[in-house]
């Protein structure tokens, strides 16, 4: 035993050294390191789940946006249809009105023309009557030759003309 070097106090000294080393390491190294590692893995776990959550959120909001977009598209379509229909109706009614107006206008014009013509005819008739009577009077009064007739007629016509003018 002695030749091997076994020594009881020395053995105890080593045990004490070991225990002190263990205590110091436990207090100042193992505990903080373990805590730091736990904290870090916890943090990483947290980060991962947060990322997962964010991705889910993004997916759901993406769906919501899609939904809203579709809604808006449908709404727009509806409005456009409505507008097109309204404009169509408006155009038709306007065209109808225009046509009626035009027709009324034409009607009125036509009536005016008719009246004017009637009046002109009346006037003309009256004029011609007088003219014819005047011409006949002249013809009868003068000797009848061709030359004279011609001149007479021309004169009458001119008179009629000037008469009409007057």
């Amino acid at each position, binding site marked *: 035993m*002695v030749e091997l070097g076994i020594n009881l*106090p020395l053995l105890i000294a080593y045990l004490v050294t070991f225990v002190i080393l263990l205590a110091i390491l436990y207090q100042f190294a193992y505990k903080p390191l373990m805590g730091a590692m736990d904290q870090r893995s916890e943090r990483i776990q947290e980060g991962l789940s947060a990322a997962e959550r964010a991705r889910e959120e993004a997916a759901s909001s993406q769906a919501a946006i899609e939904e809203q977009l579709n809604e808006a598209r449908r709404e727009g379509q509806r409005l456009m249809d409505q507008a097109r229909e309204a404009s169509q109706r408006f155009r038709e009614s306007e065209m109808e009105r225009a046509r009626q107006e035009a027709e009324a206008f034409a009607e009125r014009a036509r009536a005016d023309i008719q009246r004017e013509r009637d009046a002109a005819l009346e006037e003309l008739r009256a004029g011609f009557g007088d003219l014819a009577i005047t011409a006949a009077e002249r013809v009868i009064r003068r000797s009848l030759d061709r030359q004279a007739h011609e001149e007479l007629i021309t004169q009458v016509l001119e008179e009629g003309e000037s008469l009409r003018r007057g």
Partner: protein
Amino acid sequence: MPSGAAAKRVMLLAGLVMVALLIAGFVVGAIGSQMFGTSRFLDQPAIHLPPQPIFPFSAVKESLGYSDYPSKDKAEAKPTADAEHPPASEASGHESGAEEEHHFTPLPVTQFAITNTLLSAWVASLVIILFFVLGARKKAMVPGRFQSVVESIFEGVLNFASSVLGPDMARKAFPVVATIFFFVLFNAWIALFLVPLYQAVGFGSGGLWDFKLEAHLIRPAGTDVNMPLALALVSFVFVEYWGLRVLGLGYFKKFFAFGNLLRGRPSGLIDVFVGILELISELVRIVSFTFRLFGNMTAGEILVVMITFLVPFVANIFVFGLELLVGLIQAVIFAGLTLVFLSLAVHHEEH
């Protein structure tokens, strides 16, 4: 290009210096001095298994067999130490061959003295504490280089423990197992750094020029049988403690398996025999732990010292590489076996 050439030149120079030192070492070493008649660079080292006391100085004197300690020595500088520690005067007085080389009497079993191995264990402990406390001090969320080295070592040991014990038990067992691991590892590696001191610093006789080293100031703790024995006892107590704590008194059923015999079954005899074997193997672990580490560390130290004696200076590089590996392996084995025994003790109920 110039830097590459310069690096190449430096490498070449270093290689030449190495070869020169190797040849010089061979010439002045033990083999060369026989062949060429040169004077030896080192005295032949003496191998002794027991550690040598370095404090108190009365114990140093006594173990070296001096009644009057030579002057010009460190021991003389503090003669007051004798007053505190009265010389234990039983054994060891009779061997007084001062002419004999490396005369040395080991400490008696019950006498306390601080030995060179204990000093080196303290140095190793301080290095461990510095390393880990500095590494664990800042606790930054994003670790720096040193912190991440410490943490990755820490995590490696923890994963090793988890792979044997499972994560829950590993966390509980971790402090003791890791401390065993680092204590063995750092003691083995620190020893390599301290080898120059081993050959150069210590107590001895003679003057400044013909100084003869007889007690080394520092020596690897693993070469002191008490250190492995202490670790083995720690490991043993630790394993038994957890066995008891997890399985309760049922833990002892493994060793004292009288159950079947008391129920009158003859096969119970086998159980009793197996229980006795278990008990013996449990106790033999202490011895095997102790001598595995002690043997490896002592053999490594002897190898280093002998190579230094045979071919001084640089031939030891290869041995150092080997010893680094041996230190790591011994640390892994010591911690690993503790883990395995622990897992056997804790999970015994299941089969």
